[in-house]
């Protein structure tokens, strides 16, 4: 199966799946809506267009960002465990949010989101700084740096959470388990820009990243500026993840599992994995959010728990079939 053939077939299948997921996401919710409702009732239109539509869009965008960032990290580091969460980027974002809540910045509208964004950026800078040695980024050191940073961030999160009063604690925990409730168009815009820019950058460096996946020496001998490509890929992925976490809280698992699933079904070529992961990630997060807001409606469940719940059996099935 050629790369192009696999890509075309994969894109077709996933595009259909994505359309179906988005349609389901728009049609199903805590409140039952009919065609008649939407055409005749103002409230029904508000629910559909101001609550569900931005939410489905944000879910899709977050799926794109997390899955493409995961695919990029895995290729950059030639390490199947590389993922925004393992590298500490999501942890940094959550840490920023928790600290902001603890010190009272969270009381200001947008304060928690901005702090999460700053945390992700800080994590990126730190993890690169720690991993960089003699001008080059060593994969082992990078993973180790992520591990150490994660330990530091969780310690800081626990510490700041234990100092917050009871009511704030519920809120902070819910935020850290991920929620798309209260999605606004500005959230959609922020993550939309992040998704667009990061996908463009990833596509531009896709050829070089593919070379990198065969080995650094090899890539360098073929004229790839390996250090620069690594830095660009890593920074772009981290910033995009920071934007996603700041809009939704921590939604785990997507960046790790989606690229693996794509690799198991289709191809090992990054140029194929990247776009397919983006589409599959969008499907997974849209469906997970649909489950989060309907299973126990009108109560909402944390979406982070559901991405894992939906993703793990699927992943295990794939693993079994491929072995």
């Amino acid at each position, binding site marked *: 199966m050629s790369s192009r053939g696999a890509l075309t077939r994969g894109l077709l299948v996933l595009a259909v799946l994505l359309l179906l997921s988005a349609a389901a996401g728009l049609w199903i919710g805590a*409140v039952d809506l009919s065609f008649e409702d939407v055409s005749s009732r103002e409230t029904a239109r508000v629910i559909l267009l101001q609550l569900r539509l931005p939410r489905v869009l944000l879910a899709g965008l977050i799926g794109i960002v997390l899955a493409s960032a995961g695919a990029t990290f895995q290729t950059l580091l030639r390490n199947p465990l590389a993922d925004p969460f393992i590298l500490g980027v999501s942890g940094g974002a959550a840490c920023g949010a928790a600290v902001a809540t603890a010190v009272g910045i969270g009381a200001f*509208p947008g304060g928690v989101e901005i702090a999460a964004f700053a945390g992700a950026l800080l994590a990126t800078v730190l993890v690169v700084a720690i991993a960089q040695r003699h001008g080059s980024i060593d994969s082992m050191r990078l993973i180790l740096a992520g591990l150490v940073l994660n330990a530091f961030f969780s310690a800081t999160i626990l510490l700041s959470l234990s100092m917050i009063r009871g009511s704030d604690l*519920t809120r902070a925990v*819910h935020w850290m388990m991920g929620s798309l409730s209260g999605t606004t168009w500005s959230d959609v815009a922020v993550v939309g820009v992040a998704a667009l820019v990061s996908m463009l950058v990833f596509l531009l460096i896709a050829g070089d990243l593919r070379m990198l996946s065969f080995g650094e020496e090899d890539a360098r001998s073929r004229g790839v500026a390996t250090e620069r490509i690594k830095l660009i890929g890593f920074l772009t992925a981290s910033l995009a993840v920071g934007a996603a976490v700041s809009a939704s809280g921590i939604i785990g698992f997507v960046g790790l599992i989606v690229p693996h699933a794509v690799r198991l079904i289709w191809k090992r070529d990054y140029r194929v994995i990247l776009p397919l992961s983006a589409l599959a990630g969008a499907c997974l997060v849209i469906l997970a959010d649909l489950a989060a807001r309907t299973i126990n*409606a*009108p*109560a909402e469940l944390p979406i982070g728990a559901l991405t894992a719940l939906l993703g793990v059996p699927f992943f295990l099935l794939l693993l079994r079939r491929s072995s």
Partner: protein
Amino acid sequence: MRLPFALLLCGLISQGCSPQEGLTVIDGLGREVQVPERIERVVTLAPNVTELVAAAGALDRIVGVDSESDYPPPIGRLPKVGHLHPSLEAIAALRPDLVIASTSGNPPSLEGSLAALGVPLYVVRTERLDDIPSAIRSLGELFGGGGEDVAAQLERDLTASPRSGRSVRVLLMLWPDPLFVAGRETFVSDLIERAGGTNAVAMSGWPAYSLEALVEEPPDVILYPEDAIPSEVIAELGAEGSLWNRVPAIRNGKLHPIPDDLVLRPGPRVAEGLAAIDRILKMEEER
């Protein structure tokens, strides 16, 4: 010179090993708790528990409190033992003969750890409104009488003038984004009903609530805790173009602050919380 030390050691060991002769009482969870006949030193682990013990006439027996306890005023001078995960060392240092906690908010390991220190743990149940006067009575008995008058007065205040016939749907918002609300089968929901309202939330507990449901079945009046939610957040909700502005109660200014400690703390002052909700609903009825 060695003898006094040996005696002291003996005394310490015997105190630790043989529990004092005492009573067996049943606490709010239905557990059997061995307590001394006369309880002199108490540590309370939740603000509502502190208030309930004080209402039961045992304020002077409290020797330490959790760090959220702030009422009645003399409590401010007492040693604090932490919150959620209280310090066992700080509790032990106060040499309490009873620790009192609430049904929510303390780690499950607490009972075992306190048992290892030889300190009994009594748990107070305050999930529903009627639990509160009952808790005052039980605590009064625990401390050897007292509290009956306060409990009876509280019951009268909570049932004084049954306000019915108000067909007003009330939502108590704990936080707007993500939206957390007070559901049915909670003391807060009981307060809303006693004030003649109906809880706009049909589910029980303290759920994260769907905005779709809020827009589809909008409440007539929305209450929020004034200390927990900053005024900037509230101002934002009513802003032009905000989705919340679609909810008539917010658009029409039927969004009212309530005093956190009177309404959201299941203690003896809930009657004042009920009066506050009653005043708001009455005002809305008249306008």
